[in-house]
């Protein structure tokens, strides 16, 4: 069971309240594909990913970014039960999509960086970052849990 302090719950809720899923999601996914281009292997059906501009303008990337980021809503609402909440998604990513689970960790880093760039140091303080990264780490772990 993950132990969340009151301060962490508050920080996560506060950040989530400020995040525009339709903005941060596409940015984070685009960054994953630009900064770690080998991740493009999972998105052959997305069309043109040949340049940074193509990736950043690609509507399928944007849509998927929004979907993935929106999925975090379930985790925010179920902080004490993230493992169960993501069990089905974990099976899907393992058995159907065959995604290397290390990509979840890397995408989480990209999300944190987009949040940092958007909100700056007064909102994304060291403590806010700690809570947010802990939250994402739990989601990442839950997503990787059904792999075997």
């Amino acid at each position, binding site marked *: 069971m993950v132990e969340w302090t009151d301060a962490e719950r508050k920080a996560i809720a506060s950040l989530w309240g400020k995040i525009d899923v339709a903005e941060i999601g596409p940015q984070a996914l685009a960054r994953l594909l630009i900064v770690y281009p080998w991740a493009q292997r999972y998105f052959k059906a997305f069309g043109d990913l040949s340049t940074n501009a193509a990736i950043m303008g690609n509507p399928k990337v944007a849509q998927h970014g929004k979907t993935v980021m929106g999925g975090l809503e379930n985790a925010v609402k179920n902080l004490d039960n993230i493992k169960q909440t993501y069990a089905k998604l974990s099976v899907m990513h393992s058995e159907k999509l065959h995604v290397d689970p290390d990509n979840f960790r890397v995408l989480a880093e990209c999300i944190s*960086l987009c949040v940092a760039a958007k909100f700056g140091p007064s909102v994304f303080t060291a403590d806010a970052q700690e809570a947010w990264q802990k939250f994402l780490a739990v989601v990442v772990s839950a997503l990787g849990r059904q792999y075997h």
Partner: protein
Amino acid sequence: MLSKREKDLIKEIWERLTPVAAEIGADALLRMFASYPGTKTYFSHLDISPNSSHLLAHGKKIVLAIAEGAQDISQLTVTLAPLQTLHAYQLRIDPRNFKLLSHSMLVSLACYLGDEFTPVAHAAMDKYLSAFAAVLAEKYR
């Protein structure tokens, strides 16, 4: 691999950050200590509370070394030779921690640069810091 454009961008960004080296460095360290408490074990001899003079001095040292490396990335092994020896034989910081500081440094950069921390800048910085960390660890074994 870093392109010429990326090397120029990295050099330019670190040059610009040199005047605030202490602030950026201290910010990155604080973030690393908060998110990865195991990293604090290397600093039991210093006062690493926010705004402490030790933290600012140490942050400044780190950022200035990174900025110096950025002046001529092709010469990283030469530039970092003394620091390689220091880390391998004296400090012996587990090199897995370099990744944690690199990530924390990227967060500090993202916070301070905001929109300027474009995907291109992000990719270039991530590559540079990875290369820096790899060179730093070269003498470990």
